[in-house]
């Protein structure tokens, strides 16, 4: 097995170059993606359900709650977002539980590009990243130059991470190379003036791709194009992150790592609201990828309401009593 290199390190490009033959043409890429092993839906769902029965108690639960909090991309993506709302969210991210300063900070605050500067300022010195959606989020229905400008704007405003959406229309019509090239160009648009790169998360909107075979193919496609993270959903459609889809993406990341040595992160987003849900995802990561992925560098939750449930469960563990929604902050 090749040695591990992080997707957002300099060495990753060389590893991807070794796979250049499969992305040399539309035909080659199609043959490669269609040659990946199929996914049996019933079996995948059964495996995800079985992992969901793991019982995480006491010390394991305490560990998992703190880990989950530290992996949250605390998100606000509303038309009604204001600087005040974003600043409040940033304050929450820095200090999630005012009654317990030992509570870990979240991983990132996720906002629209025009709010990046506000968030960046509010998070100064906290170590929390600013993630910005870009590329005409959530539909991605804009011309490529617009998407690239959107990305550059967010990076220039100080975004540490860019959450792009793929062109689902191109993918579903079989124009894989077009999707691939677009991801590569967005990745280039993540380049800062000093030559460093904002980390790139690639959102598939798996609820629109529908089949598990598509999810495995798009995962490989995005990783070949240089994604640092692969992400399930925008949170803006009917079906967002599900355990089977996330499990499948974890398996794709595992296989890509075994092939190229490149370590890629995974971010399920949308619909993960409870501590119990979060535990199930962490169990899937633990038993599919192992502890190398059990850090905010390699696994994230795209969520907003999840944080408060984790905080309530955390209080329950430390005090022995359930608190309630009035004992966590609303931001």
């Amino acid at each position: 097995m090749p040695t591990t290199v992080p997707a957002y390190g300099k060495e990753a490009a060389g590893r991807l170059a070794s796979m250049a033959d499969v992305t040399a043409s539309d035909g080659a890429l199609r043959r490669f993606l269609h040659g990946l092993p199929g996914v049996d839906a019933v079996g995948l769902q059964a495996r995800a359900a079985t992992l969901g029965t793991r019982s995480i108690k006491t010390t394991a639960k305490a560990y998992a709650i703190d880990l989950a909090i530290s992996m949250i991309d605390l998100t606000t993506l509303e038309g009604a977002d204001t600087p005040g709302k974003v600043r409040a969210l940033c304050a929450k991210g820095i200090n999630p539980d005012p009654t317990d300063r030992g509570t870990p900070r979240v991983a990132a605050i996720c906002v629209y590009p025009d709010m990046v500067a506000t968030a960046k300022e509010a998070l100064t010195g906290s170590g929390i990243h600013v993630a910005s959606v870009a590329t005409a989020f959530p539909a991605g229905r804009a011309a490529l130059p617009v998407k690239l400008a959107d990305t550059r704007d967010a990076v220039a405003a100080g975004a540490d991470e860019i959450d792009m959406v793929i062109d689902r229309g191109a993918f579903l019509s079989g124009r894989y190379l077009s999707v691939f090239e677009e991801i590569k160009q967005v990745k280039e648009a993540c380049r800062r003036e000093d030559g460093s790169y904002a980390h790139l998360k690639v959102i598939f909107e798996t609820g629109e791709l529908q089949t598990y075979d598509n999810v495995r193919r798009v995962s490989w496609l995005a990783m070949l194009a240089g994604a640092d993270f692969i992400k399930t959903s925008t949170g803006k459609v009917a079906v967002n992150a599900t355990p089977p889809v996330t499990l499948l993406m974890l398996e794709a990341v595992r296989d890509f790592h075994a092939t190229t040595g490149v370590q890629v992160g995974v971010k399920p987003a949308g619909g993960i609201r409870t501590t119990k849900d979060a535990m199930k995802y962490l169990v899937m990561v633990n038993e599919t990828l192992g502890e190398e992925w059990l850090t905010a560098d390699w696994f994230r939750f795209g969520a907003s309401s999840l944080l408060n449930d984790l905080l309530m469960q955390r209080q329950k563990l430390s005090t022995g009593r359930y608190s309630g929604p009035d004992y966590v902050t609303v931001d």
Partner: protein
Amino acid sequence: MSSAFEYAPAPESRAVVDIAPSYGLFIDGEFTEAAGGKVFKTVSPANEEVLSEVTQAGSEDVERAVKAARKAFEKWSALPGAERAKYLFRIARLIQERSRELAVLESLDNGKPIRESRDSDLPLVAAHFFYYAGWADKLGHAGYGADPKPLGVAGQVIPWNFPLLMLAWKIAPALACGNTVVLKPAETTPLSALFFADICRQAGLPKGVVNILTGDGSAGAALVAHPDVNKVAFTGSTEVGKAIARTVAGTDKKLTLELGGKAANIVFDDAPIDQAVEGIVNGIFFNQGHVCCAGSRLLVQESVQDELLAALKRRMSTLRVGDPLDKNTDIGAINSAEQLARITELADAGEAEGAERWAPACELPDAGYWFAPTLFTGVTQAHRIAQEEIFGPVLSVLTFRTPEEAVAKANNTPYGLSAGVWTEKGSRILWMANQLRAGIVWSNTFNKFDPASPFGGYKESGFGREGGRHGLEAYLDV
């Protein structure tokens, strides 16, 4: 397994089940002592703790139980089907209500992980009673004539691998058809059958319709040989099955046998690999491999063998072996010292005959009977581990080059209970299913059970079907 995210122990509470210090025989609606007064102990295979003392039935007890069943038969068989159904529905609901208690009991007495007894055994047990309750008033529509008659008294002997589920497979169709039963659970796992006797009382089942005799093989032998038993049903080893067939030969007893197996789980190069790995693991490590239809021979197409075996070993390394009552345990204890010795002997023979042995690093408890999940590669048809039923968590891996070769190897066994086919090609699944001489063929799944689906073997795996409409035939005079 990761060290950072170590799952804390999550044991299911033992307090939900109240095991008495001793149990009698359940005859004619009452727990009674044996005529001979002999008793034996049943232990938890996970730590060799004595759970209870149960009674050894002798030939006099068999006589009493068969007589009680014969007496009850007259009224029971005369009840309208809808009335019998009411009792069966009631039993099914009681099983659901007491499922947590029964799951814990089953895991204690058998050694299987609570995740399986809770999520697999108990739901299937209840489903089986619900399913056959539904048939009780519709027997005229089952395809066996307008008014098919029951056989009489059924003598049933069941194994230790799925104690309560095998009881359900035997008792539910027998009662639905109007028979009465005398059932002997396995020597090492008598407790859930005794709890079932209590459920029969709770359901108000007429006395003598269900009788439970605990004991060793001699009790089973006396039961099947009893002249007033009309129907013999046995699930267990092929060796004992043959002995029963000899006993029953020349009598007018009706017989069904569900015996051993050496199932081939066949993986083609176009299989959904991740799910195939899950299916292989489920096929051989489910219930510690104590499954007659276990996929104990993995036939893998040579072109994907390296990839598949690497994935399988990786997956096996995440299996959690240990306390059956821990909700996170995947593999529990081997049921008995005797079975452990047999598994050990065959695994050693595999090594001695030149197959390559592999097992993930896993710590086994000191007390109790344990065997690590084990894989043998480089196995050929000539090896004992490719021919004999191991009935434990040991997988023999063989390879093939073409579909014809896969079929030839899969069928090259005296057994014929089940088989699995893994391919994304639908036409190949159908072609394979037609070629394979096995009673059950699973495609892109394994060890999937449903009361509506008939189950049974070819060749030395036995005859007769349990489950579904077909399962009624064994208990009707047709």
